[in-house]
């Protein structure tokens, strides 16, 4: 007896005798047609290889991914999610039941297609005396990519619930399928082109100067990211099922991403490689800041958690963008300390410290801008408005200033500290001295803070009046 009710329920819906017979029958007819269409034995094999890989992509990476996302989205759209949240099914059983149960039928067809692909590829390669290693490795890559795409679609679906805590509008799983499939295209094109003229299995990648075989690196990376996606889904499911969620896994994941990506830039100058983690962490903060909900109740809950002085409550109520911005601050302090204490050789310490301070100040300015637009209760498309304003501040206005030959204003708007100032730089250039950059960033942050607190005061007054 299967002790996973969610898996059983999905199997009741997905697996029927009719469907079990129909899948191999339809695939068989398609492969037969592909075989007949080939004018030579090799041509037939090539057709079968192409058609089977295409069938696998359709079944597993599109249809299967859709089912994986729908296993979450449909519960919300059909108002059955509350029943599930009130059940005593554990988060892990829920994830396993939904993922395996909803995609099993697609995997049934996918495995048939993939087996035909592997056999046809091996036959084709042995007929032209090519290496048999390619079909095996390509099949493995396809299999792992299929799993990752389905998991990514499911992750996006459950993340959309976690982000949008007010009842989500009729969600469509299609958006998540498209997003996860598009993200997998480079991986797919690499996999399918392996063994062809310009894609050798022998190529290597300089990751932390290790010179690892490109294909092995891809395989291992895929497995690691499958692990992280599973962890992400499990954690979000835990949150949905009312378990208190502490952000330590998120912190470890953020650090992993930074360390992983840093490996590709190991040969860059020391200043760049030292600043890279800061920029990566800042980018993640921006991403979360725009993705997470920023409503009054969320911050009120955080405030009351602080009042209760229970660390579990505080961490559980803290938005992830706050946690990541703490990492940005921690790394900045570490970087400045290392530079000031001369623990590492940095050519221009003042430039590096100024860059760190300017980054922190501009980040705080943008956090205030985003919250400025999110403050009004009747706000609409607040995050989109904030993005537009940031584009104006970072690109359009400076560009306009440059076109009008006003380099001073452009440098104030985007205060980029440069190490060569003032000896080699003329008045008409992008970039200002570290001190000027810090002053310009402080001014911008102060203006943003002033505007934010003025609006906050106004809204508080409005709320007080409406309560009266």
């Amino acid at each position, binding site marked *: 007896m299967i002790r996973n009710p*969610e898996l059983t329920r999905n199997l009741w819906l997905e697996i029927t005798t009719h469907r079990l017979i129909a899948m191999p029958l339809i695939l068989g007819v398609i492969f037969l047609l592909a075989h007949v269409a080939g004018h030579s034995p090799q041509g037939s094999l090539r057709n079968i290889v192409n058609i089977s890989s295409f069938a696998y992509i359709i079944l597993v990476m599109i249809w299967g991914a859709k089912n994986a996302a729908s296993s979450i989205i449909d519960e919300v759209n059909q108002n059955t999610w509350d029943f599930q949240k009130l059940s*005593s099914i554990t988060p892990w059983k829920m994830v396993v039941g939904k993922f395996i149960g909803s995609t099993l039928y697609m995997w049934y067809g996918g495995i048939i297609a993939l087996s035909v692909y592997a056999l046809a590829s091996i036959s084709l390669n042995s007929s032209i005396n090519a290496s048999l290693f390619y079909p095996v490795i390509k099949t493995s890559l396809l299999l792992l990519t299929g799993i990752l795409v389905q998991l990514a679609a499911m992750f996006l679906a459950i993340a959309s619930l976690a982000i949008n805590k007010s009842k989500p509008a009729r969600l469509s799983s299609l958006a998540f399928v498209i997003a996860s499939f598009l993200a997998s295209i480079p991986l797919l094109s690499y996999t399918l082109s392996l063994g062809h003229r310009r894609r050798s299995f022998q190529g290597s990648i300089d990751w932390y100067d290790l010179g690892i075989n490109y294909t092995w690196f891809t395989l291992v990376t895929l497995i690691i990211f499958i692990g992280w996606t599973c962890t992400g889904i499990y954690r979000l499911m835990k949150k949905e099922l009312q378990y208190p969620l502490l952000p330590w896994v998120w912190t470890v994941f953020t650090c992993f991403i930074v360390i992983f990506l840093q490996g590709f830039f190991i040969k860059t100058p020391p200043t760049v490689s030292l600043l890279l983690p800061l920029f990566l962490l800042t980018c993640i903060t921006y991403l979360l800041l725009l993705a997470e909900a920023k409503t009054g109740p969320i911050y009120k809950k955080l405030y009351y958690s602080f009042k209760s002085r229970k660390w579990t409550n505080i961490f559980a109520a803290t938005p992830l963008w706050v946690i990541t911005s703490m990492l940005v601050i921690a790394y900045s302090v570490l970087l400045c300390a290392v530079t000031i204490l001369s623990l590492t050789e940095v050519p221009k310490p003042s430039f590096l410290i100024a860059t760190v301070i300017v980054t922190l100040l501009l980040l705080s300015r943008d956090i205030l801008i985003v919250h400025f637009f999110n403050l009004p209760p009747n706000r609409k498309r607040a995050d989109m408005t904030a993005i537009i304003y940031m584009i104006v501040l970072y690109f359009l206005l400076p560009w306009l200033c440059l076109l009008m030959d006003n380099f001073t204003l452009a440098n104030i708007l985007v205060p980029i500290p440069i190490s060569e100032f003032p000896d080699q730089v003329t008045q008409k250039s992008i970039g200002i001295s570290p001190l000027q950059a810090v002053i310009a960033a402080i001014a911008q942050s102060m203006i943003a803070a002033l505007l934010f607190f003025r609006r906050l005061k106004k809204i508080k007054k409005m709320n007080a009046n409406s309560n009266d």
Partner: protein
Amino acid sequence: MTSIEPIITVTNLCYEYPGYRALNDVSFSIDPHSITALVGPNGAGKTTLLRCLAALDHPFSGTISIAGINSQKEPRKLQRHLGYLSDFFGLYDDLTVHQSLTYMAWSHGLHKNTNEHVSTIAKKLDIDSLLNKKAKDLSRGQRQRLAIGQATIHQPKVLLLDEPASGLDPEARHLLSNLLLDFKNQGMTIIVSSHILAELEDYSSEMLVLKNGAIKEHVSLSTVTKEEEQCCQLEIRLTSYNEKYHKTLHAHTSVQDVTVTNNDIIVTFAGNESQQAEYLQHLVKKSLPVIRFAARKKSFENIYIEAVGK
């Protein structure tokens, strides 16, 4: 005299949606084995309150305790003792009634004797003849009963129902009333939110009136009855009214006020049932042509209107 320990205790509950406070400092307690009618105008906060009680939504301040379990500290433990049915509930349309109930039984950890659990609840809900029918083929009333079955298969201590009677025909509503009384008699504590006050009157023992996110009234029907025993309004109808009856109508110590409209008389009477009988005898003895004599009951509607008007 021993006081009953409340099964639900809510203290200073506050819940907010962006820019709008749905529950404002709500506090109340509910005794076990009772049916509480949760009433209030649209947007009063009934659904939010029920969702907070079910630990599906978390308030930013205040506490909820059900059967001694704090909803914020142990929401999963609390949910084991709860059954909740939302106003817009959904069913797995492609599953049969038997599969739906089996799934729910397993979901609540009832892996042993599942068929027994399923057939018991199906019989109780009068859907035992529909076990092999798919949920999508059921009528509105049958779907409602299946949903209640799903919410109660694990025999929760507390059952929360949000507008369970909406869209049901009179027969299905009658069945629902009987079902709720049955659950109550088995020891369940039930909170039902509804707009149909007359129907709530049939089975509710308490009424909680919510308006603008605040509790306006929390009355027990037994208290109302006791109050009515002390003072009520008597409706008297005569075949024809004559001015000479005025003195006779006032000639009892319990009569406080008399209002006459044509042949109908409303008497504010501060006396119990035996005093009412005594008063009727007095009227008949004095040859008043009485064709109707009844104590006017304070209906749920009256209590509700008074509370909402506050």
